[in-house]
């Protein structure tokens, strides 16, 4: 089985800035990979280079066994892309939008309508894209990326600026897509999103991939103590939670107890530091 994505020692430079600095990354077929990182970490540049939009300064990116650069028209129908901005034709309705994208990929209009239904936009089909809410536009954008049933899907911060309900709905959709055998790569700066969706997480900062592992492994590696918060707000920090909880049970104090192990957020802050980013 070949890897869906193979990136070797990839570097992208803008002037003095090394946006991507010697990244090596492998994504297996059918895998769901989240690329996490603060703003300006180089996530979008990395993604766009793998998609084939940019010529690598050095190193290589191979997608589905084919080189990503130069633009390869035989590769393009096999990948689906949602860019960070909502890339729509101006003043078209949602339906016209997805029909246009379907036509670009030689997909029948009926299939496009199915996708509108799937992302819950049937009622908004005749609304112009300018009149859609942020979440609706985001869903339409994803539907446009998936309308040709690609093997590999790239999503650049798909849940940015969505309300909690819209995020959950989108997560369900993305899980469905992944479970139907497609490889998904998404960038995000929401920890919970990566933790819930991704098989493996790559944490990126200053153009480098700091770690690439399953969320559970990353949290284990952090080796953070467990925090047990009791109903009366007393906090117990321990490295032996099982024993501690047994002791609390004997004392009859388990009601209202909250147990917090390390989270991906702790891992992230541990790796990238706490200073503000632009």
């Amino acid at each position: 089985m070949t890897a869906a994505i193979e990136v070797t020692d990839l570097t992208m430079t803008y002037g003095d800035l090394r946006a991507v600095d010697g990244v090596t990354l492998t994504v297996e077929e059918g895998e769901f990979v989240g690329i996490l990182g603060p703003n300006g970490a180089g996530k979008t540049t990395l993604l766009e280079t793998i998609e084939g939009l940019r010529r690598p300064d050095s190193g290589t990116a191979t997608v589905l066994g084919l080189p990503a650069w130069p633009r390869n028209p035989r590769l393009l129908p096999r990948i689906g892309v949602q860019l960070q901005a909502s890339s729509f034709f101006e003043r078209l309705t949602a339906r016209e939008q997805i029909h246009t994208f379907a036509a670009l990929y030689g997909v029948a209009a009926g299939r496009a309508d199915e996708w509108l239904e799937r992302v819950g936009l049937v009622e908004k089909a005749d609304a112009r894209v300018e009149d859609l809410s942020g979440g609706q536009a985001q869903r339409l954008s994803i539907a446009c990326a998936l309308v040709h049933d690609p093997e590999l899907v790239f999503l650049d911060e798909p849940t940015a600026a969505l309300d909690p309900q819209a995020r959950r709905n989108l997560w369900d959709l993305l899980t469905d897509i992944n479970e139907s055998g497609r490889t998904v790569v998404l960038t995000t700066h929401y920890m919970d999103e990566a933790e819930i969706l991704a098989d493996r997480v790559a944490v990126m900062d200053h153009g480098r991939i700091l770690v690439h592992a399953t969320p559970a492994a990353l949290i284990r590696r952090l080796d953070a103590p467990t925090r047990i918060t009791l109903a009366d707000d007393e906090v117990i920090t321990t490295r032996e939670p099982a024993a501690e909880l047994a002791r609390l049970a004997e004392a009859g104090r388990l009601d209202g107890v909250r147990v917090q192990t390390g989270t991906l957020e702790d891992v992230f802050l541990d790796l990238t530091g706490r200073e503000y980013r632009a």
Partner: protein
Amino acid sequence: MKPFWALSRAILRGFVRDRTSVFFAVVFPLMFLVLFGGLFSDQSVGKVDMIVVGDASLVDDLPADARDDFDDTFHVVRSDDLDDALDQVRKGDADVAVEQQGDTLVAHYSQTDPAKAGIVAGTLRALVDGTNIALTGQQPTYDLRVESVEDDSLSTIQYYTPGLLGWAVAMSAAFGAAATLQGWRQSKLLRRLQLAPVSTRSVVGARVSVTVSIALVQMAIFIGVGGIFFGLTLTGAWWMAIPLLVVGTLCFMAIGLLAGAITKTQEGAVNAANFLVLPMAFLSGSFFALDDAPQWLQTFSELLPLKHLNDGMLDVMVRGEPWTAALVPMAILAAFALVVTLVAARLFRWDTA
């Protein structure tokens, strides 16, 4: 072909639903046509107000047939006060004051209205020449009829339709290309299309086809309105205006691309296109003829593509020139389009950053 049609449909819908674009492409230039056609056509058929100061035997003793022509052209008022008459001409209450000094007919006129000034000078010269010949007692070999001055110059609508159409097409082609390039770049739609299995040919072809179609609709509307309401008459090879307009559209799309390539926002791109096209329209005779402009300005205007588009359109649409008259302007416009496109391509960036 399917991607080409899908893109063309998408672009066309985007244009038709954009009220501002439609207004500036069709309604706005049409307003000028109605304005110029309506305002100035009244003046050109209206008589010239003449004040005859004192005795002017040359005017008074016209032979009967010349008298008729004279009365068709001039509305005559008598006066004895030259200063008052000059004052009236200056204020525009009268168009010309005429006095006879010995054997010389002196016409005082204002250049404020070049059309009337031309009629005045031409008609009076013909009148004097005719009288001179008549006095020799010989039958004139050549005949010059008084109205010929008016017939020789194009009536207002004949002149303005091709020029304003040229401006309208230049504007919508340049704005369309500039706004599309910038808008698509900013929404990353350009990038998105780059990642779809569509050839650049299809994308560019779709945008060009839509703009050319819009230009041809503009032409149909202009000719329709001019013909129905203002008596526009097209001359023999007018159909050559179609290929001429197509090449002109390409040329101004290239200028729009350049505007889009050198700017960073959609507003900036449209402003840059405006900055290039509007002064060019003035200097290319879209709004007024350049015949009276200084020589250096006329020479400069030869460097402007719109000047050649306008000249070519005038030649084939209303001046009755043969179809070959459009070939040189077409070649010039095509060369412009090519050079400007190459420059724009060099300056082109995929992303705004």
